[in-house]
């Protein structure tokens, strides 16, 4: 097992197996979830209906009329053993650039409406997050939020919403609480934050994460009209690497025009990601990722 903590297995009724790889969030735990579910997909037993990797856990939905639950669980334990700490696992993925208008008028208007549910009613969400994370102000906070890339550690909650985990050592990770009580409204494409995760809300609706800004880039297109959605209506996949690029209001408006004209594309480049290379030199590795994104 080369140092990896043994996973915790649990039955989810008669159709699910839930596997927690670690109680705490870490890139290592996420990589193990990714490695195990990738292996399961490549050699998928009959009767497996859904394979859902998550942040530090994963779940399999199966049809017990086709595969005996204990047989499946034993198979998952075998894969866990084989994957070990996943340090040698490498992922063929892509690095993508998401433009963000931080402190935009729409999320600001929304957060002002819900100040009664917030820890700090006299500040905006970003001012609050900057303060409790020890940053001098919103600008310094934005520099940290957009300064290192993010790993899509889970896609879900609602259709196509990415949970992202920042690729920096733990002492530099931003941590914020969720709202005291969830909002009933969140603008579509809000960049949110809860616990140690950034997210992009794919649709308008309820939400409990702090709101920092908005992206003009659609990430979910059920009608599949935009060019990035020709193959599938959901843009993000677990394992994607994301860089947030701060933009100003003029750039935001230009991108919105492109979206309306149906020409907008999310900038994206293929990349191989190995956990060991990252852990050996996080800052050097993520700087390299930024190079890949800029290359034409």
């Amino acid at each position, binding site marked *: 097992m080369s140092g990896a903590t043994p996973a915790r297995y649990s039955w989810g009724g008669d159709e699910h197996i*839930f596997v927690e790889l670690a109680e705490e969030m870490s890139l290592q735990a996420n990589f193990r979830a990714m490695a195990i579910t990738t292996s399961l997909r490549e050699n998928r037993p009959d009767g497996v209906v859904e394979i859902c990797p998550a942040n530090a856990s994963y779940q399999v939905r199966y049809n017990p009329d086709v595969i005996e639950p204990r047989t499946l669980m034993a198979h998952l334990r075998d894969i866990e053993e084989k994957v070990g700490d996943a340090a040698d696992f490498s992922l063929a993925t892509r690095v993508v650039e998401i433009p963000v208008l931080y402190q935009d008028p729409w999320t600001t208007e929304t957060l002002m409406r819900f100040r009664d549910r917030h820890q700090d009613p006299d500040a905006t969400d970003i001012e609050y997050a900057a303060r409790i994370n020890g940053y001098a102000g919103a600008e310094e906070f934005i520099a940290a939020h957009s300064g290192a890339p993010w790993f899509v550690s889970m896609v879900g909650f609602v259709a196509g919403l990415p949970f992202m985990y920042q690729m920096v050592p733990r002492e530099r990770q931003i941590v914020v609480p969720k709202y005291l009580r969830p909002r009933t409204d969140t603008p579509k494409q809000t960049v949110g934050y809860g616990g140690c995760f950034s997210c992009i809300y794919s649709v308008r609706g309820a939400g409990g994460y702090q709101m920092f800004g908005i992206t003009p880039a659609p990430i979910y297109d059920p009608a599949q009209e935009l060019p990035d959605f020709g193959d599938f209506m959901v843009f993000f996949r677990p394992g994607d690497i994301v860089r947030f690029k701060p933009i100003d209001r003029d750039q935001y408006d230009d991108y919105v025009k492109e979206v309306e004209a149906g020409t907008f594309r999310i900038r994206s480049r293929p990349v191989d990601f190995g956990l060991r290379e990252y852990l050996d030199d996080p800052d050097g590795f993520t700087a390299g990722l930024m190079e890949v994104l800029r290359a034409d």
Partner: protein
Amino acid sequence: MPIEVRQPGLATTIQDAGRNGYYDVGIPPSGALDQFSYSVANRLVGNDPGEAALECVYMGPELHFTEDTVIAITGAELPPKLNGEERPLWEAFAVQAGDVLTFGFCKRGARAYIAVSGGIDVPLVLGSRSTYGLGKLGGISGAPLVAGDVVPVGTGAGVPGRSLPESLRPALSKEIEVRVVMGLYDHVLTDAGRATFLDTNWTLTPVADRVGFRYQGAQLETKPRTPPFGAGQDPSNIVDAPYPIGSIQVPGGVEPIILHRDAVSGGGYMMVGTVLSGDLDLVAQSAPNTKTRFVAVDLDEALAIRRDYRARTQQAADSLS
């Protein structure tokens, strides 16, 4: 052979057996919440059990038929009326072009299924015709029906008069027992908290829809605990994890929520167990104020209960062939 929607009812959606394979990107199975009643409605009108039908909740729609066909209504006791005259539930009957279908007040249960010979013929989206409201896909415009919608129907050869024997119809009760496999994060509860969960007579609140059913009744005691890195601050928070369909989450130890077929696919609240797949039909027919007990079963019992459910479904199918 379209059906015109004059009044949509409270939340009438197009549903089928569901959509599998996309839960990893947050798209849940959707599909009829009470799969037994739904599949029987289809069999009554001569359809394959997996054709799309209408699911209505608490209050039925007003529908205008533009061609002759055969329909059947199952599930909740939502009395159908054709041109004002009462018609039976759990029995296929003929409708003619120009007929108008309405419903009386819901007497028992919560969700009724209207199957039409030939099935509802909206396009397949990711392999299913089911409406998934949060993601705005499937059905018509990814949303519940609205007045003025025109619902397309395929060609069928249903025979009026076919009915399901009384003995095979589900009992609709205001007091139910829902079987659960405990687990997931139930170790976050103290022994007393776990006992409270199983001993409480929970009451379904009005917060009950295709995503989840919320209950009131007691506070569950959790172990003193510092949430792990990344989870959030409440002792009941976990690092955001996948939610099984049927899983019961208990945010802050109060008001358990059973996630149903339009579930949010993951999140950061502890789950204490999962409702058996077949018992989700029972939950689907719960109206607000339904008294609900959670009964713990182990995996082997769960599999035996699943076999019984399959046998009942087969018996119903055999009686209608």
